[in-house]
């Protein structure tokens, strides 16, 4: 009787064999992996069209081994709509940051959801504009210091953090809306499930599917990756509760 080694965790096929440009501890990497795992799971890597937004995740095509269209800042849902209408048979997803989706792209995401476009939207909410150097995002927490809120976000003048998963769940076209995190192994597993379900929803033609993933930006938060990860649990999740906000897929 011998024992032999079985690999129980490996790099998903849909992910290219390349190091990312992300900062150490940036969870864009984790989210990328989960999206890749979902494509592997459904075996749709060669069909899928990814629509990249403008943000630190702009290099989608560099990391995923799939066809990619790069959209202008905030317009990924509109670009994806055009693509999906031409190729109804191909899975299409957008990957957007909180500045991209919840600020400049507000009208596009709301109307795309409202039209019930058969798309999967991955929303990486890291409460800041990462790529441009840590300015306030619509999702920045009250009191959060950013490069444009030097004394902390003042809700009286800067407004309140927007809760996209909740907002979009109020639209009839939205079939699935969920918020997850990737700060702990357990949350990572739940996030993986949610992303899979968001693709399933599209493949089943059930409607618009939205996954908000709470993510870290150690660089612009001025924290170590471990401390940043802790902030997700201590500050973000309490304000942005995890959970399924709408599931009309049944």
């Amino acid at each position: 009787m011998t024992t032999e080694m079985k690999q129980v965790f490996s790099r998903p096929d849909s992910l290219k064999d390349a190091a990312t440009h992300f900062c150490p501890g940036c969870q864009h990497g984790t989210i990328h992996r989960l999206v890749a795992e979902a494509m592997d799971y459904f075996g749709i890597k060669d069909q899928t069209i990814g629509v990249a937004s403008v943000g630190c995740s702009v290099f989608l095509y560099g990391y995923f081994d799939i066809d990619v269209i790069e959209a202008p800042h905030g317009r990924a849902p509109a670009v994806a709509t055009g693509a999906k209408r031409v190729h109804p048979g191909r899975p299409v997803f957008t990957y957007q940051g909180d500045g991209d989706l919840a600020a400049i792209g507000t009208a596009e995401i709301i109307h795309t959801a409202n039209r019930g476009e058969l798309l999967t939207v991955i929303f990486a909410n890291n409460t800041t504009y990462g790529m441009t150097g840590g300015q306030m995002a619509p999702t920045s927490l009250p009191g959060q210091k950013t490069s444009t809120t030097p004394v902390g976000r003042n809700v009286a003048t800067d407004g309140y953090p927007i809760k996209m998963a909740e907002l979009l769940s109020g639209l009839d076209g939205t079939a699935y809306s969920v918020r997850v995190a990737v700060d702990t192994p357990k949350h990572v597993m739940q996030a993986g499930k949610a992303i899979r379900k968001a693709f399933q929803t599209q493949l089943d033609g059930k409607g618009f599917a939205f996954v908000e993933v709470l993510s870290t930006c150690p660089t612009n938060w001025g924290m170590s990756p471990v401390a940043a990860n802790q902030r997700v649990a201590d500050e973000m999740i309490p304000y942005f509760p995890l959970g399924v906000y709408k599931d009309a897929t049944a």
Partner: protein
Amino acid sequence: MTKRLFVKGNEAIAMGALEAGCRYYFGYPITPQSDIPEYISRELPKLGGQFIQAESEIASINMLLGASSCGARAMTSSSSPGISLKQEGISYMAGSECPGVIVNVCRSGPGLGGIDASQADYFQAVKGGGHGGYHIIVLAPDSVQEMYDLVMLAFDMSDRYRVPAMILADAVIGQMKEGLTQHRYVAPDDLAPKDWALIGEGKAGEQKVVKSLYLGDGELEAHNNKLHAKYAVMQEKEVRFEAVELDDAELVVTAYGSTARIAKTAVRLAREQGLKVGLLRPITLFPFPNAAYQKYASNGQKVLCFELNNGQMVDDVRLAIPRSEVAFYGRAPGAGSLPTPEEFLAQICKHYEA
């Protein structure tokens, strides 16, 4: 399909686009072009195509970017203020070498302005209203028939060069009705398959990427030079213009679109008076018919440029023939400010004598 129809210019554009195989349209209502989405919303579904009334002009142009990236023939249309909103998207399409047709049925501005015909968006169309120093193909129909014909040409040129193409019309050409002779669209046989696009049921081996981001040393410069090299080729091969009685003309009138129509009558009236006057009408505003001006207007002829604005195309005319005398007569657009043939004739006589 040879029977002559009697239709609006806007409808002719829609008919021409569908005939040219356009199966995806994305738009947002705005006077004086709403007949286009209205017609297409009726007819496109019958052809199995997709019509989307988007939430905005910005969404429309980006849906166009998405659809064209997938290899489809697609179109959007709007009027001046809406076209201004599309400038970022047009710049992205140009940078991504993404074809597609954009129709601007111009109205008068600036700002909300009014809904009357205008040619004041010439600079925006030909110089690049968006950022980054790109150009797009710009075609200027002057009749309902040309609305139909040129939109087909726009799709072909756009696909050939992977450069977005614009139909630059205005409220006169869009709202007027004339006879239209429909004809079958025939694809030019030099059109290559779109192997750059996200076509078919999935990527066949290599990854397809449509993007405008170039970060490596020298990459973006090379990309820009490539784009401008294509513009040079278009300048060689694609220029179109109409020459009316130019061979013996001593005064060369030049105008495009609706003002060219008005000028045609003025030129006829001038000829009836025995004046040696002709008309040079650019059909392609970009590429601009520089050679035509050099041929017809750089040997002592005087040039008189008519526009429905305060002077825009006249710059390109002067750049084409720097040593010729080029006069300009324009009317700022607005309600009740459409020039008449009689008015143009008076200008012709004035500059002819002088």
